[in-house]
């Protein structure tokens, strides 16, 4: 690993500006916000998954000496606020009025002098429930006679949400008919998981009745989108709403939606005239906020005998819980799932996705994932391994044989994506080199002969990130373009204002480095302002690995505007034509006379000084830009996982994990590596231990970190990282985004490795999470659960 003693003036390894405050415990999170006279709210939640509310008696709670107000769904109904829109054109109850539809659903909100009293008073509220039959298994959600969960919707007589398809069924059928080999998988679930950020969700609402201004400190990844939605829903004027996202302790998609607690805090502040804080606890976060995945997938693959993959077809049943609270572009109800063709050059592809309601928490959000890309990558990478097994071809060789070739880019997939760039074979080869793949296979053969079970799993993913072009993509009608404003002060120090919001990604460092690279000034001279809607330009926020692809591009573009303006100022100062000036890092100089020039700092002072500026050039050195991406970016990666399985106990030990990522140009390689480490750890957690599980009555069984397991350093290996760099041709600095890649790419590598280890037992698939119990069962049942 390269040293960090040399401080880059642009791109390069640089410790994060954010680190000192986080390392010292000096971060400032929503729960650190304390305002004079602030009250505390707590949410009463449903103990049942499906029940009619026959009565709510809040009188005892109201009489608690420290309680200031108790709000129920009926109170909100009077204001037209009992229901709110989700980010997927559905509605969600803020506080239940008619029925509760999942265990943990919000029923009432207590506001008290302190959090202890608020929680004590919850126990004084008496709710009568009439239990209703529940729908837990999405496979039964559309059965005739299944209880209708969303009878709040006019004329709704079933639990169907949407049907969606992409690609061509006809072409797919044709290829399947004449292919040498076709393989149909069993149902492959990507289980319900939860992003589980260490900071739970919460808000402090402060409504000033005199000025009419609402200030909301909130755990949000998308402060501007939230502001607009509050304006649209609550009828508050948008210029009187200030959403502030202070330091955020991890988001991973969980902090994209608007949650009922935020709305309750706002209503509570309006009702009481005091600031109201609401912070959910761990159980509330795990059981009521945006879950992820929960796709039941069946794949079909058609290939020639020699291993040329010809077509893929996938049919998905998607469990969205009680309210469809997915956050994704409105054109795509199943997100970007149709990227399931992965990294392969195919003749045909077709997918269908059917969304249904169940009596479970609403979602699902894109957990460190660009809108269902993770589910798609998992499925295709499992299918390719199953095909390799069927054809008795090495899984790496099969991938190599089918990769989209470097010269085919830009490549249009059978489902309509235009991949920008990639050199998949080079990326794969780099992973094989680091892993020592051939030696690993030899070691495996030797171990098998001794009765030891070692597995080698490979995955190769293509991500689609940086949503997205306004012509195709919006969230709740808002186009997915982002703004940036750059102001260079007279002394050459700069302030960059961006619409995206870090939750740990290091924006304050990365974005300063982009400005530094473009203007040739030190990154520490660039202050990055973000997370406050009163101080930053509009944009859709940080998720879907979109910050660098969209806001990073806006930052480069606004820096270039500054550079161009500095050229005009330099031309006036140096009394030459702008055309006679040439740029070198940090400075315009006169062609043929390099001694004569002006730095950005000098230009900044001149712009604010007494210099007579050329006609049409306004003073100061400021600029604005809005970036509407012409296309998404397509990072990729090759991952290899090596596991040792103890067949006596079913325990899986990840011995090695090699991750070669190609995210285009790397702005700060240290931050990229940190992102990859985090996503890999999450991926291992998903693959081996995580599941938001329910019993047959819809009781959530995973409501704490005792039951919803997060991997520790003891469960992960020392990551072995590598890189290839294929710049994005359409992005101003060639960067593609990397935040999610490792979470997307790692689960199939882990599962493929375990299945590979268990091959001698005839095992061809094991569902996630691959717990010791599942591994042991797979060994016992051997070939009894092969693909059908």
């Amino acid at each position: 690993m390269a040293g960090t003693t040399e401080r880059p003036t642009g791109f390069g390894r640089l410790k994060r500006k954010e680190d000192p405050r986080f390392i010292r415990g000096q971060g400032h999170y929503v729960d650190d916000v304390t305002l004079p006279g602030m009250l505390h709210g707590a949410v009463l939640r449903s103990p049942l998954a499906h029940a009619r509310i026959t009565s709510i008696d809040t009188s005892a709670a109201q009489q608690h000496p420290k309680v200031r107000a108790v709000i129920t769904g009926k109170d909100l109904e009077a204001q037209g606020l009992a229901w709110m829109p989700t980010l997927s054109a559905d509605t969600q109850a803020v506080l239940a009025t008619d029925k509760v539809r999942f265990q943990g659903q919000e029923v009432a909100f207590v506001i008290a002098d302190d959090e202890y009293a608020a929680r004590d008073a919850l126990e004084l509220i008496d709710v009568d429930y009439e239990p209703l039959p529940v729908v837990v298994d999405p496979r039964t959600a559309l059965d005739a006679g299944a209880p209708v969960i969303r009878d709040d919707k006019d004329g709704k007589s079933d639990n169907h949400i949407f049907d969606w398809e992409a690609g061509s069924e006809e072409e797919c059928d044709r290829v399947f008919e004449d292919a040498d080999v076709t393989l149909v998988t069993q149902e492959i679930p990507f289980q319900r998981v939860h992003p589980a950020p260490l900071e739970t969700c919460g808000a402090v609402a402060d409504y000033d009745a005199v000025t009419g201004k609402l200030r909301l400190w909130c755990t949000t990844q998308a402060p501007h989108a939230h502001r607009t939605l509050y304006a649209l829903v609550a009828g508050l004027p948008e210029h009187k709403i200030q959403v502030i996202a202070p330091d955020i302790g991890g988001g991973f998609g969980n902090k994209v939606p608007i949650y009922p607690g935020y709305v309750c805090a706002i209503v509570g502040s309006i009702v009481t005239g005091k600031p109201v804080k609401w912070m959910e606890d761990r159980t509330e976060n795990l059981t009521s906020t945006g879950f992820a995945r929960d796709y039941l997938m069946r794949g079909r693959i058609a290939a020639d005998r020699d291993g040329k993959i010809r077509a893929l077809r996938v049919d998905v049943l998607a469990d969205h819980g009680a309210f469809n609270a997915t956050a994704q572009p409105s054109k795509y109800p199943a997100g970007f799932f149709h990227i399931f063709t992965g990294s392969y050059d195919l003749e045909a592809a077709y997918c269908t996705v059917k969304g249904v309601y169940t009596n479970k928490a609403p979602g699902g959000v894109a957990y460190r994932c660009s809108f269902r890309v993770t589910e798609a990558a998992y499925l295709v990478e499992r299918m390719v391994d199953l095909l390799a097994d069927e054809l008795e071809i090495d899984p790496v060789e099969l991938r190599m044989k089918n990769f989209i070739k470097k010269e085919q880019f830009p490549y249009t997939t059978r489902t309509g994506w235009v991949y920008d760039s990639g050199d998949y074979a080079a990326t794969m080869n780099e992973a094989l080199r680091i892993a020592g793949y051939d030696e690993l296979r030899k070691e495996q053969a030797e171990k098998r002969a001794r009765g030891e079970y070692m597995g080698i799993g490979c995955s190769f993913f293509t991500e689609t990130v940086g949503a997205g072009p306004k012509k195709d993509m919006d969230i709740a009608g808002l186009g997915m373009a982002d703004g940036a404003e750059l102001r260079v002060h007279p002394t050459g120090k700069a302030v960059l204002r961006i619409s995206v919001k870090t939750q740990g990604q290091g924006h304050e460092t990365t974005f300063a480095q982009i400005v530094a690279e473009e203007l040739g000034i030190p990154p520490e001279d660039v202050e990055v302002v973000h997370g406050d809607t009163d101080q930053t330009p509009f944009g859709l926020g940080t998720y879907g690995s979109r910050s660098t692809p969209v806001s990073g591009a806006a930052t480069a573009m606004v820096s270039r505007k500054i550079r161009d303006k500095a050229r005009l100022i330099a031309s006036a100062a140096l009394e030459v034509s702008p055309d006679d000036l040439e740029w070198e890092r940090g400075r315009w100089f006169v062609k043929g006379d390099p001694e004569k020039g002006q730095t950005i700092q000098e230009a900044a002072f001149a712009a604010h000084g007494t210099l007579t500026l050329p006609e049409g050039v306004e003073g100061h050195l400021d600029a604005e830009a809005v970036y509407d991406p012409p296309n998404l970016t397509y990072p990729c990666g090759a991952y290899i996982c090596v596991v040792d399985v103890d067949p006596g106990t079913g325990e899986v030990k990840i011995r090695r994990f090699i991750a070669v990522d190609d995210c285009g140009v790397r702005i700060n390689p240290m931050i990229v590596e940190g992102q990859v480490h985090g996503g890999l750890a999450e991926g291992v957690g998903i693959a081996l231990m995580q599941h938001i599980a329910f019993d047959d009555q819809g009781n959530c069984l995973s409501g704490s970190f005792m039951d919803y397991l997060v991997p520790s350093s003891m469960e992960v290996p020392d990551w072995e990282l590598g890189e290839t760099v294929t710049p994005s041709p359409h992005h101003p600095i060639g960067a593609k985004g990397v935040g999610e890649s490792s979470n997307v790419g790692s689960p199939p590598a882990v599962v493929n490795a375990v299945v590979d280890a268990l091959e001698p037992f005839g095992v061809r698939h094991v569902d996630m999470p691959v717990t010791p119990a599942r591994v042991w069962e797979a060994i016992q049942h051997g070939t009894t659960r092969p693909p059908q």
Partner: protein
Amino acid sequence: MQVPAPFDYARASSVDEAIALLERLGPEARLVAGGHSLLPMMKLRLATPEHLIDINPLESELNYIREEGGLVRIGALTRHRDVLASEVLARHYPIVREAEELIADPPVRNRGTVGGALCQADPSEDLSAVFAALGAVTVIRGSGGERVVTMEDFHEGPYETAVGDAEMLVEVRVPIREHGGSAYEKVKRRTGDWATAASGVALWLDGANVGAAGIALSAVNPTGIRSTRAEQALIGRPPSEEAFAEAAALAAEDCNPATDQRGPADYKRHLAQELTHRALRRAAERALAS
């Protein structure tokens, strides 16, 4: 934030005072030592004691590991960390350190106590099985004096022990015996998790044969932690793969695991057999080397 229901708090400055407080405050009072089981349950409002009696001030009285009179005596307020670090325990009973290394994580081990672990009597708890395998006894004190109770009688069931409302566990006594070996085997889903299944084993040789044996399982039985039939199957025979297999099969046969998120009952039953077999193998190696 998870916040507990209202409760009163008292600090005891001696064991006698703690017992007097328990008598005075009645059955809604609970002792708190490390608090790593009780406090999370209170924050989730699964436990709502009206009074907490803090016994952490009793360190000097109840935190000790002493070798005397053919016994190792362990004070009830001895922290997991001290048990893990104890050379005396490691020398006499390797099972103890093996188990402690697999209990929770350092923050829990720094505060959690032997007495707390045994009195919480979680069915997946490790030390109950360890001490049962070693044939330890517990010392319970009340205002009327002390009584000595075997581990089997101490552990009455999940979250149930022989300690009465106005009594407290003050000591665990482990006999020191020659020619012994012990071992602990545990499967868990991740570091810090409770056991999916665990097996604690101790063997003592009498010449070439097994003279005495202790086999106790964790997480696979709602009640009763010792596997007597498995122990009997070893006694009077030389330690051998055949004997271990037989004993391990009996241990599995006699356990009664429940299906839960850690795995189905048949998997846990298999683990009871597999882990007991592995532990027996290692315990016997140690006994033979002693």
